[in-house]
Structures are given as structure tokens and as C-alpha cells.
């Protein structure tokens, strides 16, 4: 019984990690290629979730909604890149932080304007509803398993894209020397827009997938954004591999910490104190892990070549 609960929490942690990877991959890609810190990435996550919820409600099909979330988030990303972000590449990080902070205010209030303050709900598609038995677990929600599968597919797809295709070659070249690749005749501005749209689409996908587990509401992107920051700081900013490892570390630490800490502390403290201290510690755990990683590896676990 305990073992089955632990396995279930392990899978939940994996699922959270996979979601965080979708967010962190876009962030780290954008930072790696353009040197830009994008706080508005959480807003694109929100855009994806809202697009999915609205289209799914209108057409009755989750899958159309999912497609809409990819398209809308990518389009929103491309538009924002074209109008605002491209003026920020040569600026210092302070300007980037402020401008993207301003974008968050605009996106959040804009969404509240369009959709109101009440959360929207998104149903799990019938194909993926229900639960399946797994070795050691009586029943685990199929949808969460599917999310883990999607994350694994995206990770593999990104690996193929970056290491095997021409676009990926250009992305890697842009990371190591953007003047040189521009001098070689690659249209660097279009490349930047494409990378930004790609990162945005991943964020939108994450938003849509999570939207069916939680409610879709304004401000949903911000906690995820900050977790994604922790992920890429642990993994090393600019490294996709780091983002994957960091996301799994954060997802598992957070989920298992909330599950295990209160009971572990219960061994040395009275039950009531252990509950509160455990819950408080668990809420801080990933930040403590981050501080530890940084104390020993200030540039993260997989530092990208700067």
C-alpha cells in the first residue's frame, strides 16, 4: 500500500517534471540563442491554455483545442517577438526583465478583459480519461501517463531537431557566434523569430495539457514560470539537456518532498509540529536544492559554452 502510494507520487513527480521541461526548454533555447531573459514565457503558457479551452468548448474537441493552443501560442510569440522582443536583444538584462514584465501585465490584464476573472474548465478527452493498472499501482490516470509520453516525445523531437536538421544546425551556430552566422548569409532575424515561436509553442502546449488537470485562469503561468527558472538555473542556462535533467530533479524533489517530508519529520517531532514544519520545508525544498547546486556549481549542472 505504502509502496503503491510512493510509486504513484513518483509518477506524479515525473509528470510535473515533464511539464516543467516543456516550459524550460523554450526559455533556455531563447536564452541560449538570443541571450534574452523572457519573463513573459508564462503568459504564452496561459495563451495556450486559454486557446485550448475556448476552442475545445466551441467545437467539443480537445484535439482541435490542442492544435489551436500550439498555433495561438506560436503566433502570439511571433507577434510579440516582432513588435517588442527584437528591440531588446542588444539591451542589458535589466531592460529585458522590465519590458517582459510589462508584457506580463499586458497579457494578464488583457486575458482578464477578454475572459473575465472566473476560471475556465477543460475536460480530459474521452480517449485518455480513466485509469490504467500499472505494476505496483492499482490504477493510475491515463491522462497523466499521456503527458509523460508527450514530454518524452518532445524531448526526443527537440534532440532530433537540434542535432540532425538544418534549422537545428543554424540554432547551434547562432548560439556559438551570431555575427558569423549572419555574415554567412543566414537571415538571423527570421531565425530568431522562428526560435521564439518554437519556444512559445512548447509553452502553449504545456499550458493546454495542464489546463485539463487544473483550471484555466489568469495568472496560471507565473508559478510555472518561476519553477521553470529554477529548472534552468539548476540545469545550466542555454542547455536543453540541462533543462531536461533540471526539470526532472525539480519535479521529483517537489512532489516527493511534499509526500515524504511530513512523515519523515514525524519520526523525530510530534505529529502536529511535523505536519506544519514538513509542509513549510517541502514548499521551500526545490529552492534549497537550487541554492545547494549553485553553491557548488555556480553555472548549473550542464553549463552551456559561453
Amino acid at each position, binding site marked *: 500500500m505504502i509502496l503503491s502510494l510512493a510509486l504513484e507520487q513518483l509518477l506524479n513527480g515525473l509528470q510535473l517534471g515533464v511539464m516543467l521541461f516543456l516550459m524550460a526548454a523554450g526559455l533556455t533555447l531563447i536564452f541560449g540563442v538570443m541571450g534574452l531573459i523572457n519573463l513573459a514565457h508564462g503568459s504564452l503558457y496561459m495563451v495556450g491554455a486559454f486557446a485550448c479551452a475556448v476552442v475545445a468548448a466551441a467545437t467539443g474537441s480537445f484535439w482541435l483545442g490542442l492544435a489551436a493552443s500550439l498555433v495561438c501560442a506560436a503566433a502570439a510569440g511571433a507577434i510579440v517577438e516582432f513588435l517588442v522582443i527584437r528591440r531588446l536583444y542588444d539591451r542589458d538584462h*535589466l531592460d529585458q526583465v*522590465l519590458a517582459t514584465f*510589462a508584457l506580463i501585465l*499586458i497579457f*494578464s490584464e488583457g486575458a482578464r478583459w477578454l475572459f473575465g476573472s472566473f476560471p475556465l474548465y477543460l475536460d480530459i478527452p474521452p480517449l485518455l480519461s480513466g485509469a490504467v493498472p500499472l505494476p505496483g499501482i492499482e490504477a493510475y490516470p491515463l491522462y497523466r501517463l499521456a503527458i509523460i509520453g508527450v514530454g518524452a516525445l518532445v524531448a526526443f523531437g527537440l534532440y532530433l531537431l537540434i542535432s540532425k536538421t538544418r534549422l537545428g544546425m543554424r540554432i547551434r551556430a547562432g548560439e556559438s557566434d551570431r555575427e558569423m552566422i549572419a555574415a554567412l548569409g543566414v537571415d538571423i532575424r527570421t531565425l530568431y523569430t522562428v526560435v521564439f515561436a518554437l519556444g512559445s509553442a512548447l509553452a502553449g502546449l504545456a499550458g493546454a495539457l495542464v489546463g485539463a488537470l487544473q483550471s484555466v485562469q489568469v495568472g496560471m503561468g507565473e508559478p510555472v514560470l*518561476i519553477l521553470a527558472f529554477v529548472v534552468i538555473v539548476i540545469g545550466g542556462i542555454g542547455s536543453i539537456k540541462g533543462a531536461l535533467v533540471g526539470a526532472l530533479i525539480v519535479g521529483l524533489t517537489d512532489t516527493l518532498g511534499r509526500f515524504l517530508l511530513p512523515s519523515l519529520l514525524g519520526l523525530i517531532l510530534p505529529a502536529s509540529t511535523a505536519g506544519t514544519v514538513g509542509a*513549510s520545508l517541502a514548499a521551500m525544498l526545490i529552492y534549497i536544492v537550487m541554492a545547494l547546486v*549553485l553553491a557548488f556549481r*555556480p553555472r*548549473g549542472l550542464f553549463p552551456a559554452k559561453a
Partner: protein
Amino acid sequence: MALSRENIINLVLALLLLVVPVAASQMGQPFTVTLATRIAVLALAATGLNIALGLGGLVSFGHAVFFGIGGYAAGILASHVFSGEPMMFGFEGSNQMPVIWIFAVIACGLAGLAIGAISLRTSGVYFIMITLAFAQMIYYFAISWPAYGGEDGLSILVRNQFPGINTMLPLSFFLLCYGVLIACIGLFALLRGSRFGAALQAARQNEVRVAAVGISPYGIRLAAFVVSAMMTGLAGALYADLNKFVSPSMLSWHMSGELIVLIILGGTGRLFGPVAGAMLYVIFEFALGGLTERWQFFLGLILLGVVLFARGGLIGLLAGKARHD
């Protein structure tokens, strides 16, 4: 001090912030006095951040931590006086502002030392994200720790007292905050003009050269970060007393963002930048907030415009470029 254009503007801002609430109080408009107090307290918090951000170039995206710790110092000490339950070591709390301020400043100094010591090992984007992450850590701690209200926050039932001043009167409380603000702006000017300030600004401009003349940038920056944290913490204690309420939202990353926004609206590294920024911000909030519920949408647009097109902020617009940039 020569009367340069910037100094004249500073003087005008300082007088404006003093005269308007005094006049409003005479005309029986306490709400204006409260707005002015809000401006003074936010300007104080941003002046603290301006030491790290403006002088040191340390983009701390987690200064809400110190703002919130200062606020909780006021709330927690006062709540123990009210409930009569002693704190640790039999200390029974306090509702005297000087005592609260000392606690707030020491607590923020220690927190700043711990956070700064780790965060300053990194730089650039890492520094931004790490300060943000530490702030979130304390934020989630405040939410999940039930002893002092947790997510609901903590009310200060009666505003804390200052010897010889009736803090319940809006104008008296404003003058107290204004006095603290001017004293801290003076401290900022002293720091900026000192050898320490010169080294700090030099470390922002060229770290390698500073190291080459035998000054360790790390120590200088850490000291600046700690002083900066203390000043922002003092502002937090005043802010809690202003609202008679402290909640985790004082620790939230939106607050950290707002503090940076105040500095940028006014002009980075300028002596009165935070004052100008806080004035603009509170007036925007009040004027736009009266017109539309969605004022943050327009604040976002304005902010975007300032970042993209008006980089010196209000003071830069009025007084021209800073001498050293």
C-alpha cells in the same frame, strides 16, 4: 553642491512631496495624505534597491523579500504585544517603532547577507533568477507557515507608536515617513560620494579593472547588497504600519518587479529617481485606477514605452543625461 538642473529638480520633488500633503491636510483631505505616505514609503523601498541596482548594477529581482521581512517584523512584534504571549527568550514583543525598525533592519541585514553571499557568486541572468527564486522560497514559507496568519496575512490592530508623535494622525505619520525617506536619501548620497560608493560603481562599470587595482568586487557588492536590504526592510516596516496589515503579497515577485519599475520610471541610479518613480506610479495607479479596473494593462503599455523609448526615466527626461554613464 552646485545647483545643477538635476539638483533643482530634486529640490522641487522633495518640496512637492512635503507641501502637497501638508496643504491637503489643512484642507481636510486625509486621503491625499495617505497617498503621499504611500509614495514616501515606496520611494524609500526603491531607494534601498537603488543602492544595489543603480550603484552596483546588481539587478535583484527579489527585494520584496526584504520589504516583506520588514513588514512581518512590524506585524509579528506588534501581535505579541496585543496577544500578550511572549516570543522567544521571554521577549514580549513591541509596539514601539524604533524597536521594530531595529529588528526589521537587523533581520533584513542577516537575510541579505545569506541571500547575497550565495547569489553574488553568480552574475547576470543567473543573479536575477536566483534572487527571484530566494524571494519565492520565503514567499512560500510565509504562505505555508500558519503561526502568523499564513496566506491570510496578519493585521496590525493599532498602528505602532513613535515616542513623541501621534502616529494615528495621517499627517504626523506622513511626516515621520518623509523624515525617514529624506534621511535615507541623504545616506544614499553619502554612500554614492564615498570611497565605497566609488568602488561599487567602478565594479559595475568594469569588474576586471577594479580587481586589478586590488579591490575585491565580491566584498563590496555584498556590503552594498546588505545595506540595500536593510533600507528596503525599513520601508517594509513602515508599509505594514501604513496599511495596518502585512501579508505574503508583500513578499511576492510582483512586488519585486514593482520596486524595479519605480526605479526605472524615475531614472536608474539617480538620487531622486525612486521618489520621481514612486510619484508617477502612485499617481498612475490612482488616476488610471479611477478610470478603469484594467489600469495594469495601461501601466504595462506605459512601462514598455519607457523601457523601449525613454531610457533615462523621468529625471533623465527632465535633467538630461547623467554625467557618468
